[in-house]
């Protein structure tokens, strides 16, 4: 009896707290890749501004674009920028435009399992494209062995592993291959899922990693953060300046900084194969998708407030979670762009 009374009081107290706060709920949906940092940001921001609560569903970039276009959520999030057709669809349906706000940076790294090879391998863009096109089939092919002097590469068949699910990771990887290989650009092109010329598919980063661990002489690609957090070995990639770069937070930020000069007004930019001596070539922004017009002034102000905080104080939370920070120049330009949200 006593316990019941106690429980009832607790429930009532909780209800009272929730009732009293009655927070402004802002719904978002989209990319899974930045989910850890987004949930951290939304949590911290809610603690600082008790009356604003964000609810973010990491349902995938495609679903995020779809939902924000349908108007079922207040904002979206994506790993690959919306294309012109999608922008037009949004304009037609909602009568206003949508803005891209880069939030943090990620990278995709080549990972492999070659028995006898322990150190990090070097990969040229030509080698990666050749392997994923099925043109380079042996590990000791000169295209790979030539840049890995001293490593004893076996004369075994290469087993290619890719993502089987649609994913921003695949988008970044194929975007890079399209830039560095004419043949890839004409045959396969870039998308969240493509018609792979060769290879096995694994579901999610963990599926790809699992297949690679189990299959000798295999190669695949995973997100940098996943590789770092799970101690997955990964190789260096030759950048546009001819240096072999191993992905880390600094080299990924450098890639973003290298492209700021030619960054378009709407931030829809691919930073794969970016210029710069220390740039890691398979890097990418991830974006929040914010409509320019809000019906609800409260929501609009809350989102604008959050964007401002995310671009300044919020960036400090990125590196502990293994995301690369935005370069200063990009932050400044984004802060100006917030004004377009009305």
């Amino acid at each position, binding site marked *: 009896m006593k316990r019941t009374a106690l429980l009832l009081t607790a429930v009532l107290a909780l209800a009272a707290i929730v009732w009293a706060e009655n927070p402004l709920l802002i719904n978002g949906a989209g990319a899974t890749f930045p989910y850890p940092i987004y949930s951290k940001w939304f949590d911290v921001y809610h603690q600082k501004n008790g009356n604003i609560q964000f609810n973010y569903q990491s*349902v*995938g*970039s*495609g*679903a995020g*674009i*779809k939902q924000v276009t349908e108007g079922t959520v207040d904002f979206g999030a994506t790993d690959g920028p919306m294309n012109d057709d*999608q922008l037009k669809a949004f304009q037609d349906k909602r009568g206003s435009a949508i803005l891209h706000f880069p939030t943090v940076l990620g990278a995709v790294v080549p990972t492999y399992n070659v028995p006898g090879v322990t150190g990090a391998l070097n990969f040229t863009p030509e080698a990666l494209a050749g392997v994923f096109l099925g043109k380079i089939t042996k590990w000791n092919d000169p295209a790979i062995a030539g840049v890995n002097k001293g490593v004893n590469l076996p004369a075994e*068949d290469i*087993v290619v592993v890719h993502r*089987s*699910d*649609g*994913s921003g990771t695949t988008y970044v990887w194929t975007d890079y291959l399209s830039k560095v290989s004419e043949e890839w650009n004409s045959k*396969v*092109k*870039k*998308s*969240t*899922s*493509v*018609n*792979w010329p060769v*290879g*096995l*598919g*694994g*579901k999610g980063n963990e*599926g790809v990693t*699992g*297949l690679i661990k*189990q*299959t000798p002489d295999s190669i695949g690609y995973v997100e940098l953060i996943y590789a770092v957090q799970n101690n997955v070995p990964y190789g260096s990639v030759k950048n546009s300046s001819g240096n072999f770069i191993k992905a880390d937070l600094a080299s990924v930020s450098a890639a973003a900084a290298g492209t700021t000069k030619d960054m378009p007004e709407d931030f829809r930019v691919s930073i794969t194969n970016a210029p710069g001596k220390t740039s890691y070539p398979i890097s990418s922004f991830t974006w929040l998708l914010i409509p320019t017009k809000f019906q609800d002034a409260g929501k609009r102000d809350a989102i604008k407030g959050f964007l401002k905080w995310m671009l300044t104080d919020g960036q400090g939370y990125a590196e502990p979670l293994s995301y690369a920070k935005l370069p200063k120049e990009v932050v400044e330009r984004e802060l100006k762009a917030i004004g377009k949200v009305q």
Partner: protein
Amino acid sequence: MAIVNPTMQDAGPVVASRSFLSRLRDGDEIARLITFLFAASVVLITVLLVFELWTNSALARQKFGLHFFVTRVWDPVTDEYGALPFIFGTVMTSAIALLIAVPLGIGASIFLAELAPARVSDTLQFFIDLLAAVPSVIYGLLGVFIIVPLMRTVIYPALNKPFGYLPMFKGPSYGVGFLTAGIVLAIMVIPYIISVSREVLLSVPRDQREAALALGSTRWESTWKVVVPFAKTGIMGSIFLALARALGETMAVTMVIGNTPKISASIFSPGDTIASVIANQFTEATGDLYLQSLVGLGLVLFLLTFILNGMARLLIVVTTQKGSGKGNQ
């Protein structure tokens, strides 16, 4: 019947002339109506499902038509979609699963129902029910960590060396593929076959067995020639259930099949199934045609299940007619 109210029994003779109102009061009409609604909901859900799949795949049906069934390409970049590799993979993995699971499952259920002592049978049944309740992702993990390595190091060499000249066993093995998926599916559906078949065999009347034994047949002869044929329809039912589960299984299959939409005669090569590709690509499918093609695949899976079930039912009708014909002679 034993708990019937004595006053109601007295009212027995006038039952026929009872008014609708009184029948309503006694609950007959209400019970009839409610159970009818429950039964109708099954049809309603099926119709609704087909309707949804049909309307939401309109674009794909208009663009590809019947070519959807025979196109081998699945390219989200050029918006070209064909279901053939997925249909092939679905049928192939389910066929392998049933080839393994049916003899094993029926054999086990015969042992449990006819030969094992009751205590052993009941204990084992408990474990089998437990197996049926294990989530499919667990079976997928079992496949990834045990069957995939086993496939590469033991099963593949054992089959490829002596029989490698046959197209079925040709080519390299990556561990993942049709056979691996088929084996995982077989492990998943065996509990269904055993559980249902055992119940059916146990419900065969005792006099059937006794009559066979009295005519001088051995224990095995009475089981195999009398009890099993008697329970045939029920056993077939258990196989349908297994087939349905195998056709629609998603998670465990996608973990071990290699997710490569290619058609190959070799059971070692990687492939893909309808359920698996839908689960893999649905969330990131952005274009309308892409999305509708995936829904179209769902429709194909529905059709496939429908056709395979129909064929199996036809098989039963044909075989049972033959059996009873013989009995009449």
